[in-house]
C-alpha cells in the first residue's frame, strides 16, 4: 500500500479520537502486519513515545511485526488441548513445515503459531486454521490439511 494511504488511515482515525489499539488493528488488517516504519508514523501522529507503541504492539499476540504467510495455522496448547495430546500435533506441524512456532515458511505459504485456548475446549485438541476452528485434531489430520493448502 502506498504510504499516503497509510497516512490517511492514521490521520482519519486520530482525528476521530480513535485509540491506539483500533488503529493498530485497522493497519494490520490492511497490511497483514505492522512494519516498524508504520509504528513510527503512528507514534509521531499520535504524539506517543516509540516504546509505548512498540510495547502495546508486542504485548498483544494479535499483532505481528513480520509479514504473515498466506495460511495461518494456530494450534492450541492450552490446558485442555495440552492434556489431550496437542504436543504431537505441534511436533508434526513443525516437522512438515520445517519451521518453529512463531515462524513463517520461506515460500511465505504458512505461518505457524501456538496459542493458548481458542475457547473450544470441548473439541480439544483444536486448531484455528485461517480463522476457522478445526476440532479433534490428530497429526494425520493436520498433515492432510497442510497438504491441501500447499
Amino acid at each position, binding site marked *: 500500500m502506498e504510504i499516503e494511504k497509510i497516512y490517511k488511515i492514521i490521520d482519519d482515525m486520530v482525528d476521530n479520537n480513535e485509540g491506539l489499539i483500533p488503529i493498530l488493528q485497522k493497519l494490520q488488517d490492511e497490511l497483514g502486519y505492522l512494519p516498524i516504519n508504520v509504528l513510527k508514523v503512528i507514534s509521531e501522529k499520535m504524539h506517543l513515545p*516509540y516504546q509505548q507503541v*512498540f*510495547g502495546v504492539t508486542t504485548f498483544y499476540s494479535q499483532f505481528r511485526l513480520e509479514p504473515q504467510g498466506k495460511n495461518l495455522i494456530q494450534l492450541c496448547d492450552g490446558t485442555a488441548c495440552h492434556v489431550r495430546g496437542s504436543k504431537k500435533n505441534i511436533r508434526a506441524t513443525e516437522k512438515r513445515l520445517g519451521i518453529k512456532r512463531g515462524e513463517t515458511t520461506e515460500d511465505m505459504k504458512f505461518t505457524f503459531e501456538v496459542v493458548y485456548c481458542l475457547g473450544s475446549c470441548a473439541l480439544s485438541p483444536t486448531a484455528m486454521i485461517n480463522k476457522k476452528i478445526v476440532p479433534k485434531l490428530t497429526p494425520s489430520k493436520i498433515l492432510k490439511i497442510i497438504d491441501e493448502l500447499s
Partner: protein
Amino acid sequence: MNIIIDGRSIRTEEQLTILDIAEREGIHIPTLCYHPALPPQSVCRICLVEVEGEKVLQPACSFKVRDKMVIHTDTPKVLEARRVSLDLIISNHPLDCMTCDIAGNCELQDLAYEFGIKESEFKGRSIEYPIDDTNPFIIRDLNKCILCRRCIRACDEIQNRRVLGVTNRGFETKIIADFDLLLQDSTCEFCGQCVAVCPVGALTPKISTGMGREWEFKKINTVCPYCGVGCRFDLNVKDEKIVKVTSNSENPVNGIALCVKGRFGFDFVNHPDRLKTPLIKRNGKFEETSWDEALDYIVNKFIEIKESKGSDAFAVLSSAKCTNEENYLLQKFTRAVLGTNNIDHCARLCHAPTVTGLVTAFGSGAMTNSIEDIATEAKAYLIIGSNTTEQHPVIGIKIRKAVREGAKLVVADPREIDIAKIAMIHLKQKPGTDVALLNGLMNVIIKEDLWDKEFVEKRTEGFEELKETVSKYEPKIVEETTGVPADDIIRAAEILANNKPASLIYSMGITQHISGHLNVLSCANLQMLLGNMGIPGGGVNPLRGQNNVQGACDLGALPNVYPGYQSVASEGNQNKFEEFWKVKLDKKPGITVVEMMDEAEKGNIKAMYIMGENPMVSDPDVNHVRKCLQSLEFLVVQDIFLSETAKLADVVLPAVSFAEKEGTYTNTERRVQLLGKAINPIGDSKPDWQIICELSTKMGYPMNYNSVKEIMDEIAKVTPIYGGISHERLNTNGIQWPCPDKEHPGTTILHVEKFSRGLGHFSAVDHLPPKELPDDEFPYILTTGRVIYHWHTREMTGRSKGLDKIYPESFVEINPEDASKLNIKDGEIVRVISRRGKVEVKAEVTERTQPGVLFMTFHFAKSNANILTIRALDKVSKIPEFKVCAVKIEKI
C-alpha cells in the same frame, strides 16, 4: 489523624503513604522498585505490609494511610511474602556479585543479605540477552535487570524523554529503548538518569567499568564545571583519580538529574595531556621549567614593559571557568599591580548585552528569577534564541516537564531546535530580526489591549515612547522583516498575554548581534508590558553560558566595573578601592576582548595575561586573532591544557581543574555555590589563585591568603551584593545574591515591588539589521551555535573519551532545498567561505535549518566556524556578531 504501625500509635497527615510514615518514624520496610525521586510503581512486592481489614498484603510505597489504620510490617506472613518475591527476582538474576561493578552499591545484594538468600529455591529457565555496550557511555546488561522500571520512570518523569519502555509480557518482558533498539541507535541522549536510579548492575557507566567498587571510593560533592545551570554531583575518587560521577539528591538545582557532559564528561581531569610543569618558549620551542624560573621570567618582563610602555600596554583575560575568588584576585592584580582596567573575559562574547541591557531597563544585569520558580510557576514561556535542551540541559528538562503539565510554550528561533518540537508555536525568524519580532508581539499586545496597565502605570517609565515605536510594527510589516507569518505573531502574542505569569528565557541568539543590547532591551520591554516582572514564574531570564560566567562578571573581571558592578569611572568607588587595596588606581575604564586584539595588532597592547580562555577558537575572525596575538611582545597563558591559544604563548603556567580546587562558582540564577576539592593538583600544577598570589607577591604587591575562604571574606567586604556571603554560610544550598549581610537569606527573585533602579525603564528601540547580510557573492547567512555533547572550544569535552567519540567532528547544516540546488549530498565535505577565511567541513543536509541559512557549531579548532565569523561589534556592549555573517558554500 492517627494510625498504628506495629503496635505504635503515630500521629500523621493525609495523603502520605505507609512507607513515608515508616521512614519518618524509623520503622524499617525494605524496598526495591521504590525510589524517592520517582512516583511509586509497586511492581517488586518487596515492601508488602499487612493492613488490617485488607484482604491481601499491600505495597507500603503506594498505599495511602487512612485514619485509625492498623499496619503490621513484620508478621511471619509479611516476611514470607517478601522473601518469596525476592527469591523469584533472584531466580532470574546472575549471582556474579564477585565480579560485578556495582557490588557494594546493589540494592538486590543488600536485600539478599538481609533475607539470607544465597541462591534461589526456584530452579528454572533464565533468559540470556546480549549486552548492549555499543554506545560510549552506558553498558546495558539486561541479564541483571530486575524489571523494577525505575529507568523507565526516570526517563519519563525526570528527563521527560520517554525513550525507555517495556516490551512483551510474562517471562519475556524486557526493558527497551524505542523499538527495541540499541541505545546508540535510539533517541536516547545519554543523560544517564537511568544509570543513577538502577538498583542493580543492569545500567552502569562504561567509563567506570573495572575502576573500583563502592567501598573504595571517596565521594566529594561539588559543582559541575560545564554550563551555568550549576548542577551539583558527587565525584567518586579512587587513588587520586576520578572514576565516576554519581547523583546526589540533596542538590538544590538539579536533584539527581544531570546531562551527558556532567555525568560522563569528567575524564579530561586525569587526561595525559594535562599541563604538569610551567613552560617557557625558547627559540620557538617550549621547555619545561620550575615555577620560580617561570614566575621570575614573567615578573621581569612585566616590570620591563610596565616601566617602558606604561600600564595600558597590558591586557588581561580572566576566566569564567575559574572561581569567584580567582576572578577577584586577577582583577585585583590587573588593577592594583599592573595598574590598568584592561581586563575582560568571555562574558563579552556571550552576555555583555545582558549586563548593559538589563542594567538600563531594571538596574541589575542578571537573570531575574530562579530556576525553581520558572520551572514550577510559569503558565507560559517565551524561549527566544536559546537552544535550552542542548545548552542548559537540566533547565531544558524542567521546562519540558512544565510543558507536559500544561504550560504554554512559544519558541522563537531560526532553527528547528529540539525544544521547538514541543512548542505550541515556533516562530522561525530570520537571524538578526529579533527586535522586529518582539516589537511585533508588543504591537499586538497593545492593539488588542492585553497589556498590564496597572504594572505599567505604577512600576515603569517611558511607555508612551515605546507605544509610538511599536505601533509601526504591524504584524504584516513584521512578517516581511522576519519571515514569520503575521497570524503566528498574533497567536504568540495572545498566548503570552493570556497566560500569566509568563517567563521569558533567552541566551546567545539574543545577545550575539550588533543589535544585542537592543534585543535585550526589547525582551525587558515585553516582560514589563505584560507585568511579568518581580513575580514567581515570570521575569527576563538570560541563561548564562559558563559555569561561573555570572561570578566572573560579579567579581569585576570587566573593564568598566569593580566587583559588584561598581563603576570604575566613579571617583567614590575609586577612592574606596584605593583605600582598601592601598594602591593608586586608574579611573579610565579599560578595553574589551575584541578591542584588546585590535590594540595588540596596532602595537598598543604589548603584553597579555590570559587565564583559562581560548580566544584562538572562541573569538570571531580567528585568523585575525592569531595575527594580533603574534604581534604581542609577551604572552602568558595559564590553563590546564596546551590550548590553541597557549601554543602561541611565551610562558605557559599549569593550572588545576575544578576537581583540584576550593572556591565558589555563581550559577545563572545568581546562586553562589561551594566547590569540593576531590584530588590533589596533578603534577606541578597549582590552583589559579595561588599562581596569581605568587606572581603578585613577586611583583612587589604581596597577596598572602592562607586559604580561599579568606579571599571570599575580602570580597564580602568590598562587594555589597556578596556582602553576607562566606564559605561558612554556604552549605549545599548555596546563597543567591544580592545578599547584603550575614543575616540575609539571599534573593530568589529580583525587582519584587521595586526595580533595582526604581522604575523599570522602557526603551523604544528599532530593528537594526545585521552588519553583513547576504549578497550575490556571499548568498547565505551563517549562524553559529553548540551541541549538547560539547563544551565551547572542546578543551575539556574533546578530551573526554565518550563525548569525543559520539560527536567527533564539525558539521555545516544546510537545508535540503539549498543542498539540492548546489548538488550537495549529506555527509559530503564542502567548503564554506566568508570574506575572512574558509573552512572545509562535512555537510549535514537537514530541515533543522531554514533555506538560505547555514549553521555550524564553534566547538572545533579544525573546521573552525570562527574563521568565518565577523568582528562587527554591538556599539554599547561590544559583543561581536557571531550569529550572522554572509558566506558562500561550494563543492570541493
